[in-house]
């Protein structure tokens, strides 16, 4: 036991607090060691082991609900982190050319590995101001319509679409209903299903129902190891099923919303590994893993001719859904 004062069932945030503290100590020690040539090897090794143990403790056989919490973690890498780390020459394209520019969805052109792609992604904010402006990454109809416009541009100029999914849900607001939230989601699904350009989708955080699916129809579906993808938030499911939103842990388990569940169901094509405990604990490693997966997926889909791509894309969704008889 590295951390004898820590109970086996210590709460998550207590473990996290200790982990950060140990990480800080480790960083300081490493700095001293490097600068002053002191031999602190032993001490550093001890601290490093403690960090690993704490992470492992934090992440021993995580429950679906724990994974939900990681997927929603405030410090989980978000679209801007992926944009700046994975893409160059980023040019944001704004507006649906109809009504508004929805800040909850980012669209743009950029380079990945030096080659042009269109990027579409949910855009959660980092602080209150951003979150208000972006509705916590919950799109309005204008967002999907912007996505459709930019996807069509990608089709026209012959570049693949990279879609990064991270939304709690489509925004449940009066204006969203007035402007046709349902129509916009349905249309986006239809357009993406027929888009004559390769589409690679990565669910990086929350894949929240229709708001996620609207930009998650593509040729390859990657999913970060601790992302979730669900038809309804666990809280909503519990409220409907047991009239008790507090039973969200049970609902989270019942919904089979984790990456391995979705891989098994034939929905997800590949799981992108995350550092122990989740991407927020070591963003660069998580982002690098996504880079590798995106690179492989893009290389594969770029090879294919459009008609083959479209048939396979259709077939991919066509076969999801087991039944009897």
């Amino acid at each position, binding site marked *: 036991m590295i951390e004898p004062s820590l109970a086996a069932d210590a709460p998550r945030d207590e473990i996290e607090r200790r982990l950060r503290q140990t990480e800080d100590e480790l960083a300081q020690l490493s700095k001293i060691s490097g600068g002053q040539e002191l031999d602190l090897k032993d001490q550093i090794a001890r601290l490093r082991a403690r960090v690993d143990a704490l992470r492992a403790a934090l992440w021993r056989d995580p429950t679906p609900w724990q994974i939900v919490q990681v997927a929603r973690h405030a410090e989980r890498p978000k679209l801007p982190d992926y944009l700046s780390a994975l893409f160059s020459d980023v040019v944001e394209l704004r507006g649906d050319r109809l009504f508004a520019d929805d800040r909850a969805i980012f669209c743009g052109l950029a380079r990945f590995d030096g080659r042009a792609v269109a990027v579409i992604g949910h855009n959660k904010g980092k602080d209150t101001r951003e979150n208000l402006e972006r509705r916590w990454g919950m799109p309005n109809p204008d967002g999907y319509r912007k996505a459709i416009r930019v996807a069509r541009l990608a089709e026209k100029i012959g570049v693949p679409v990279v879609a990064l999914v991270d939304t709690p849900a489509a925004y449940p607001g009066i204006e969203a*209903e007035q*402007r046709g*939230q349902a129509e916009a989601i349905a*249309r986006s699904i239809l357009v993406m299903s027929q888009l004559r350009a390769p589409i690679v989708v990565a669910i990086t955080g929350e894949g929240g129902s229709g708001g996620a*699916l609207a930009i998650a129809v593509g040729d390859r579906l990657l999913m970060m190891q601790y992302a979730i993808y669900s*038809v309804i938030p666990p809280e909503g499911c519990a409220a409907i099923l047991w009239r008790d939103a507090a039973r969200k842990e049970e609902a989270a388990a*019942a919904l*089979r919303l984790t990456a391995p569940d979705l891989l098994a*169901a034939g929905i997800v094509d590949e799981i992108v590994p995350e550092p122990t405990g989740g991407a927020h604990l070591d963003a660069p490693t998580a982002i690098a893993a996504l880079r590798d997966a995106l690179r492989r997926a893009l290389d594969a889909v770029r090879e294919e001719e459009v008609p083959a791509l479209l048939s396979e894309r259709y077939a991919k*969704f066509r076969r999801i859904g087991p039944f009897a008889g």
Partner: protein
Amino acid sequence: MLNWLKRPKFDATVERREMPSGLWEKCPRCAQIIYVKELERNAKVCPKCGWHHRLSAAERLSLVVDEGTFEEWDGGMTSLDPLSFPKYAEKAREARAQTGSDDAVITGEGPILDVRAAVGAMDFTFMGGSMGAVVGERITRMFERARERGLPVITFSASGGARMQEGAISLMQLAKTSAAVGRLHDARLPFISVLCDPTTGGTTASFAMLGDVHIAEPGALIGFAGRRVIEQTINQKLPDNFQTAEFLQKHGMIDMIVPRTDLKEALARLLRLMLPHQPAQDARERNDDRAVAGR
């Protein structure tokens, strides 16, 4: 002369759900006591207040498909329980027993005033008309078969959305059905979506909102997010007409609001217009046809 359309009879060829027991029923809208036979004779439109009572899939089909002609497609498909979701198998079993249906949709082919069409009708009484793998598969197959056979498609949606108990699999049915609609459009075949009370959630956010023409029944609830979720999110009361057919029409989403008693004729007229190689037929000719064929 009585217009037979105003007095539709339910079709015996389609399996039929029993009415609530008793001869009299209370209208949930105007609270008047109505003679059940009268309600049935009036296509379940309240004779007092005009409220369009919900119909089962079988009732729906009998109202629009020419009598005795409906040919069911893909019958006998029932849901698995791929997630082993709490109580799902049990609930589905109960729903099958209560409704006599396999799942929340019936699909097939049947002429509408002699115009051949693929028709799908959802059943809200079957687990809230929710769309899981069976509904998604049947709808998808219907669009695919219509495309192969060169038929137009009409759907009657009545659904609370995706079937939670099948998790992300049910979400994928949105993609599957929408993609199938896309292929029907490419084949230049018409698709008329009739949105009935209620059509919400994932069903609205997929095939039901992708018609060439959108028809709604008067007063029908149509929307994406649930009323309560919206009220909680924005912390304010919603207007009374929110998410009604009339509200959606004002906001550009619905072409026509058609009373149930006029629906069959409206559908046939539209189908003939949208299949330009079908001959036009005026009402008199149609009545003559019916008299001769005795259907």
